[in-house]
């Protein structure tokens, strides 16, 4: 066992390759949060009255709340007055007001995010968000020809106010929870997607979130609407610089899916996780929820979570339409001193609704990794079905893996199944690989990717390769 410990240690000292900082002129407001801050943000974005009202109500409500402590997380005190709530990198230079500042282009190039439309090879449209603003959205015109709206949420507020007003807060209300209230008060940017009736989005849509400025929180808001018979596959990626202090990221993602429409939402979360002693890193407190509003509609969440110092995140589905389907596929990796409390809620309201949960936790170092899930079958959800599979893989003797499955079944025709396993990475497997000439580091990558394969297979191709590498890198030098 001692040898395995050493090997695991070797494999888990990870390298974070997105930890650089871009030096760019940024419009930053004073730190601290009061009603004035909310008004400044709204004014900077030239928002209509109704949106300011929404923010102010949310802020007033947030002030009555306390931070939740029910998760299996040890969250240090956060001083919300120390945070800067708005930081907008200047998108263009005075010389070239119509072009995105080359420094920003360079930053996203360095992150491997194509912001030039000629880089069409990836078949992917991108909305790039740095700190509090969307820097650029690609292929907007190509998509518009099919009636698809893909833009930053700030633009959507300006150009499609009716859609935004109808749906904003309709799935995650500002009274939902502490972080949802906070986000609703101060959200700055994020993406907006509308896929009209009968349209299959011809390319992957993606948003790339980047935190750059110091002491800044990122509060993004994403709203995706798929009208009847529409389909879209949406990807989300994120990174941040390496810093000694913790930074807060509290996002909301809302999805509404109408009759027979489908939204596939994939995340590769790679926020800076902190160093090997647990210093620094992002607090990732996110509320993601989709509403299967229509008959036969479908939402599929796939997430690969490798970053963040602390993750608090439960992408969920409200299965309101009859025959609607919710899926949640998750790989959560924690290493060193990272903590994750993640899972999903499947709320079955409609008849013959089905949900699938596959959660794979991988823990190393001194990390804590929890799965928390709720399967709720309401009284009128005749014939609902759920299958949950929660597996934990332990790579060190000092890490923790926990499973908190809740089931609330109020209709006796429901079929709900839950399976759970916990395993350790096996010295014999490592040695077998080594005997074939494979280094320990690569062997851990192979074994972990094999363990997570069921989830990784759900990712779009371009993403899957990246995610596989990420899994191996996050666990580089882990095996103990």
């Amino acid at each position, binding site marked *: 066992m001692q040898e395995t410990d050493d090997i695991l240690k070797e494999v888990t000292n990870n390298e974070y390759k997105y930890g650089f900082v871009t030096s760019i002129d940024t419009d930053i407001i004073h730190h601290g949060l009061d009603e004035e801050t909310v008004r400044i943000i709204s004014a900077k974005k030239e928002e209509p009255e109704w949106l300011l009202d929404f923010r102010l109500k949310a802020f007033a409500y947030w002030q009555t709340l306390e931070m939740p402590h029910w998760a299996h997380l040890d969250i240090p005190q956060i001083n919300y007055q120390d945070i800067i709530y708005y930081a907008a990198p200047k998108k263009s230079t005075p010389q070239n007001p119509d072009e995105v500042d080359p420094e920003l282009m360079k930053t996203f190039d360095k992150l491997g995010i194509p912001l030039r439309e000629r880089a069409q090879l990836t078949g992917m449209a991108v909305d790039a968000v740095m700190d509090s603003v969307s820097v650029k959205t690609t292929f907007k015109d190509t998509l518009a020809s099919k009636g698809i709206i893909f833009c930053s949420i700030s633009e959507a507020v300006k150009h499609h106010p009716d859609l935004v007003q109808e749906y904003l807060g309709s799935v995650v209300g500002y009274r939902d929870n502490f972080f949802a209230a906070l986000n609703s008060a101060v959200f700055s940017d994020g993406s907006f997607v509308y896929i009209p009736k009968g349209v299959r989005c011809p390319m992957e849509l993606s948003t790339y979130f980047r935190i750059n400025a110091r002491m800044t929180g990122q509060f993004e808001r994403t709203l995706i609407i798929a009208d009847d018979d529409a389909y879209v596959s949406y990807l989300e990626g994120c990174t941040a610089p390496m810093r000694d202090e913790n930074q807060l990221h509290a996002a909301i993602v809302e999805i509404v899916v109408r009759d027979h429409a489908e939204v596939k939402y994939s995340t590769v979360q790679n926020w800076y996780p902190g160093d090997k002693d647990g210093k620094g890193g992002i607090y990732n407190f996110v509320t993601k929820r989709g509403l299967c509003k229509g008959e036969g509609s479908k939402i599929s969440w796939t997430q690969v979570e490798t970053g963040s110092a602390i993750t608090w995140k439960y992408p969920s589905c409200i299965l309101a339409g009859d025959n609607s389907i919710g899926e949640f596929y998750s790989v959560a990796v924690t290493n060193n001193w990272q903590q994750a409390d993640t899972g999903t809620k499947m709320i079955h309201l409609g008849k013959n609704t089905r949900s699938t949960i596959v959660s794979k936790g991988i823990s190393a170092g001194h990390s804590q990794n929890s799965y928390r899930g709720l399967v709720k079958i309401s009284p009128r959800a005749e014939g609902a079905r759920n299958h949950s599979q929660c597996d934990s893989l332990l790579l060190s003797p000092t890490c923790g893996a926990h499973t908190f499955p809740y089931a609330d079944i109020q209709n006796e025709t429901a079929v709900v199944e839950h399976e759970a396993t916990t395993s350790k990475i096996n010295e*014999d497997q490592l*040695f*077998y690989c080594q005997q074939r*000439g494979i280094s320990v580091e690569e062997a851990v990558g192979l074994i972990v990717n094999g363990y997570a394969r069921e989830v990784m297979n759900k990712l779009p191709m371009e993403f899957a390769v990246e995610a596989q590498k990420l899994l191996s890198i996050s666990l580089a030098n882990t095996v103990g």
Partner: protein
Amino acid sequence: MLEIKNLHASVGNKEILKGVNLSINEGEVHAIMGPNGSGKSTLSSVLVGDPKFQVTEGSVTFCGRNLLELSPEERSREGIFLSFQYPIEIPGVSMVNFMRAAVNEHRKYKGLSSLTATDFLKLMREKRTIVQMDNKLAGRSVNEGFSGGEKKKNEIFQMAMLEPKLAILDETDSGLDIDALRIVAEGVNKLKTPQNSTIVITHYQRLLDYIKPDFVHVLYQGRIVMSAGPELALELEEKGYDWIKQQLGE
């Protein structure tokens, strides 16, 4: 090729190998026989660097290098292959990915570039016929759900892919029916060249009917107590291991 001198090895505080001497030249096949608990599997484990065993004394050189200084993966890349007595299952890792990682590591060590996917699959197809392994098996996870016979065929298939200088077959015959035994043994024979060498560890003469040894050694209580030609295996089969004890005056 391989020179073992006064090798002592323990697991925990228990000494299992108590001074093994063995010398193997290019192209030779050596059989190591002996009763249960004599140290046969320990010897093979120590040669491939299994961390469960500690070498306490002695030396092993392989092709002029001090083998005991090398990591298990370096020993593999230098050309030592172990066919495991109990092959390990690795769920979710396909044979294709596993073997591609292994073959490319070996190529990198030799300064060669990685094989393209097409070339690699071609190589796999070619090698798997050696042990009559079907295509489906190659697509499955490493040893997962394989029968005993399939696992052993899979070991020899991997040996064919990696073309070792020295192959150690640790009780490759255990758990095999007659047909599977023949296929596995024929596979080993097909891979035999005048340059590579083999150590066959077995309890029984049966396997040696197929894989003809040049030398037979008897390992007993952590030492090689008798070495001779192939006739020794036949004599052992006839007289049993008690005969060894008598010879040793016990």
